[in-house]
């Protein structure tokens, strides 16, 4: 997806000029000097990177390298220790006022957060609601859609993920793979501009992985949703992503297009890691 690089066409040239960044950098996701510590453990240290609007980026690296933390920071499930995250130039949780770093209020955070969706390793469907209620809950109560409209859209999404006949069942009655496809439908129902996929097949029995990945390939093919993917499914990463970032100890140690990364990694750590997982 090409980004708008001409300042004249920018919706808000003043703001763009104020950030002082190269034109276009304010589109998509931007991490600026991000630090995340859990107690004394530093997970991310001074991390800077940028994901273009519509880009599909896979994060790989050994466990504890900070990949999942990046997704959780974007979803505001963790608090930034320091630094800033911008979505299309809008601050997500913290902003600069003069020289001070200020935390935004819940309402301001919510405005940006609504544009981001997430699918979890453990599905996290609401067990007290039916499949269709899981999907319509947020469109009705966050976006204010009429129930009938939300239900119709939910049914269409269920069809898309191959579960049209399961609308009125409860999550507990479904297999893990089916639950995960419902979770994908639930995230898509909010029309996210950004979709975060956190090891979405890791909790599944091997024979159920294929259906879930097929659904996600279809989403990648038919939409221009920006995707950040943490996965151990290297073939899937290769098929869907435009770029792969290799993390180690909270830093990006290598980045490349998937074909290059998986066939000809430069960094020694990357070579070791890929040898172990491929």
């Amino acid at each position, binding site marked *: 997806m090409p980004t708008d690089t001409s300042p004249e066409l920018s919706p808000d040239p003043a703001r763009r000029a104020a950030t002082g960044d190269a034109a276009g950098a304010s589109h998509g996701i931007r991490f600026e000097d991000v630090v995340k510590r859990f107690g004394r453990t530093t997970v991310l240290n001074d991390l800077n990177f940028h994901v273009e609007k519509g880009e599909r980026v896979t994060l790989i690296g050994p466990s504890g390298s900070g990949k999942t933390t990046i997704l959780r920071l974007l*979803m*505001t*499930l963790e608090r930034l220790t320091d630094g800033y995250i911008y979505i299309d130039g809008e601050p997500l949780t913290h902003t600069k006022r003069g020289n001070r770093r200020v935390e935004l209020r819940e309402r301001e955070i*919510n405005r940006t*957060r*609504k544009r*981001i*969706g*997430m699918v*979890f390793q*453990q599905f*996290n*469907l*609401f*067990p*007290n*609601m039916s499949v269709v209620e899981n999907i319509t*809950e*947020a469109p009705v*109560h*966050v976006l204010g859609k009429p129930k009938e409209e939300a239900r119709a859209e939910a049914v269409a999404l269920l069809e898309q993920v191959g579960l049209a006949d399961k609308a009125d069942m*409860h999550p*507990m009655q479904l297999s893990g793979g089916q639950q995960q496809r419902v979770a994908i439908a*639930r*995230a898509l129902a*909010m029309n996210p501009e950004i979709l975060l996929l956190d090891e979405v097949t890791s909790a599944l029995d091997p024979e159920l992985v294929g259906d879930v990945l097929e659904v996600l390939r279809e989403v990648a093919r038919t939409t221009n949703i920006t995707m950040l993917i943490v996965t151990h499914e290297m073939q899937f990463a290769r098929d869907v992503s435009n770029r792969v970032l290799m993390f180690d100890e909270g830093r990006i140690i290598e980045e490349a297009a998937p074909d290059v990364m998986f066939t000809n990694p430069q960094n020694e750590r990357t070579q070791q890691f890929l040898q172990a997982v491929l």
Partner: protein
Amino acid sequence: MTDFTWSWPDAAEALPTLLEAFFTVTLLITVLGSLIAAVVGLVWAIALRELPRPLSAALGWVLDVVRMTPLPLQAFFVYYTFTSIDVLTIGIVVIGLHYSTYMAESYRAGIESIRPGQWEAATALSLPRTRTWRAVIMPQALRATVPSLGNWAIAMFKDTPFLLVIGVVEMVTAAREYGGANFTYVEAFTIAGLIFLAASYPTAVLMRRLENKLAY
């Protein structure tokens, strides 16, 4: 050997008086007290989680104090502080608030049994906090909580005689008065005990049924 002989006619004669005390006082206190305890207990449990740290710590401390001091003492305390309020009202409020602190603990345990992923999914969908509580957390937490709320209600029911200290004439006090007037203490207390049992037992069975029904 005692020189006592059980008298069926005396027992039968005591029954209407005791039943009246049961329905107009004991049951009334239990039902209204349970409602207060269930609602206020829920407010405590949510406040403990939602209030900023120093406030929730202070609230937790107050609840501990209420839970760890005797009910009759609290009844006396309120009775002598609010002298113009009738004893039945005081009894209902005191026993309701006393048990709200226990029910708060039950709610808290139920809320804590919800996996963090449920909160995270709600955040990821941008559900407002109140909606998250109402539609996601409480329906699940209540399943774990309802049985123990029922047990507290039964415990409260059996604690109603403590309110005699402030002059509430519930069934046990009524039994003593009736027994004293007619020299039929044993019959009167036995009937009172049977009425307690007749009310508690079906309630316990009902709670167990409800518990099974709430399971997924």
